């Protein structure tokens, strides 16, 4: 009798636990749903549809106008400020910015991480110590002098100035990859080195293929970091040609009239900033969720 009631109790408990998880999913997803819904709503219907779960007259005009596919007059008629906006260009900029930084940074940091883990050379541990100490310096601190340097070198609003501080390395990526390389048994590459492929060959033919997991982890987290980056691109890449999505969204909000922001256009632009990561999540979601693991740092 008592065991039966206990089981019933646990079944109710499980039901409640699932209800909480489902509620968490709803709270997570709803703002995104609302974003898409608003983007599909004509600006004129914003008030009438303010809490309709689906717009009464769904339209793609908001996407067309933020992508610069309509004339200024039509865009203004649809609720825009009429200013030239081209989110297609900004999206491309964001994709290139993220991809270049992620690929180059992972590549260079893997090489250095390997050197710090395996190669013997003078000052190795001292250098690595300084590198780890740099983890303690918050980005805003180096951002101010980096800004003045990029400005003085005349690299404002250039792609080079935009990627320069993060394209070669971050201390964390070197640290993370070095810790992983340390966990690979030495014997694995020792044989290859003696076979005459050298350190370089051993790194490329043995270590890199073995470390696909951690390399993808660093690559993906760097991609996400760069995709979300705002302050640096805002400072050095505000110009039309180097403007990334996050900066463009901020500029777009500032351009809209003070009384009521151009919400339908903003939500269309926001949707563009979500779509690529959604694709990333669909194709690499499993890998991504598995890689979020502190105990991976060994």
């Amino acid at each position, binding site marked *: 009798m008592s065991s039966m009631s206990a089981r019933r109790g646990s079944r109710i408990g499980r039901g409640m636990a699932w209800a909480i998880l489902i509620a*968490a*999913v709803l709270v997570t997803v709803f703002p995104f749903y609302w974003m898409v819904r608003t983007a599909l709503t004509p600006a004129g219907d914003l008030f009438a549809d*303010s809490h309709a779960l689906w717009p009464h007259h769904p339209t793609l005009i908001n996407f067309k106008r933020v992508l610069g596919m309509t004339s200024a007059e039509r865009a203004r008629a649809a609720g825009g400020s009429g200013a030239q906006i081209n989110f297609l260009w900004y999206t491309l900029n964001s994709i290139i910015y993220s991809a270049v930084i992620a690929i180059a940074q992972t590549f260079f940091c893997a090489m*250095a991480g390997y050197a710090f883990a395996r190669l013997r050379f003078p000052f190795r541990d001292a250098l690595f110590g300084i590198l780890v100490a740099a983890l303690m310096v*918050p980005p805003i601190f180096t951002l*101010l*002098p980096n800004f003045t340097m990029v400005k003085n070198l005349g690299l404002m609003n250039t792609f080079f100035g935009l990627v320069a501080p993060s394209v070669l390395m971050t201390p964390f990526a070197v640290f993370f990859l070095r810790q992983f390389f340390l966990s690979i048994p030495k014997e694995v590459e020792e044989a290859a080195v003696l076979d005459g492929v050298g350190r370089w060959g051993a790194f490329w033919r043995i270590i890199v293929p073995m470390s696909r997991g951690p390399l993808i982890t660093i690559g993906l987290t760097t991609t996400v970091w760069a995709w979300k980056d705002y302050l640096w691109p805002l400072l050095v890449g505000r110009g039309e040609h180097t403007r990334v999505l996050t900066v463009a*969204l*901020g500029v777009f909000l500032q351009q809209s009239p003070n009384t009521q922001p151009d919400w339908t256009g903003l939500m269309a632009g926001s949707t563009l900033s*979500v779509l690529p990561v959604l694709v990333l999540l669909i194709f690499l979601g499993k890998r991504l969720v598995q890689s979020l693991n502190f105990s991976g740092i060994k």
Partner: protein
Amino acid sequence: MTVLTGWTSGEAAAPSRDGHGAPARRPRRPRDDRRVAPLFIAPVLIGFAVFYVYPTVRGVWFSVTDYSLLNSPSYVGSDNYSELLHDDQFWNSLKVTAYYVGINIVSQTVLALGLAALMHRLTRSAVLRATLLLPWLVPNVTVGLLWAWLLDANLGFANHLLHSMGVGTVSFYSPTWAMPSVALVNTWAYTGYTALLLYAGMLQIPQELYESAVVDGAGEFRMFRRITLPLLRPILALVLVVSLIGSFQIFDTVAVVYRGSPIPETRVIYFYIYQQAFTFFHMGYASAVAMVLVVILGLLTFVQLRLLRASRSDLG
């Protein structure tokens, strides 16, 4: 700085003629890897020297100068720091940031711990985890815009919801609600991510512990308190410190939602630095404020590195 680069170029320029002289001999292992090492570390060392070491030194120098971006920095000793002590706006920004961090970290950690525990005991679904991760993948700028729209005073869905539940209108942008709103929005954005980190930590706990506890008739809450929490502690501490470091650096959400001019109640320290540097061009003063942040975050990072080492030995 000079030591680092000088050493690299010196090594790279060193002649390497080994192996050419005596082909008959078995290739001897060099004493160490100083000939190939520069190749491996050169890009990282250059990046590190130019964009980390040099600006760190310059940042410290800026903080004791008067520098407006237009003139060249002129040394003023500790003036910036003594000004700091009497700057109400600076203290306000610290207070506001602390308030934000408090709300954000407590709500986020409690919710994430709960979600992680539920997932751990109920499901291994990767789809569920990926879904919860979505807000973390989205730029903070986008998060800010989504919620600025949801919390909009006139047409926002949040107030519609509150209305239909019989609660009156809440003005989320008022001095009272502004900071809690921003904090909870970022809690929304980071709870899933934090939950996944904690969940990964829970997976390290041996399953047998739960099985034998069930045999002993322990309930879920008891198991959570007696098994999950104590064994998760190293990971939990680490996640907490990492979240704290991130939380102190709140900027994007505030800067975007308030269109570059936040009300005093939301002017967090990162924004104050930004404003001093790029609105008023007080580079020197901004660097001094940033130094304060360096000290706070430096201490936290030090703890983090300690915990990283500790968690390694704990979970083997």
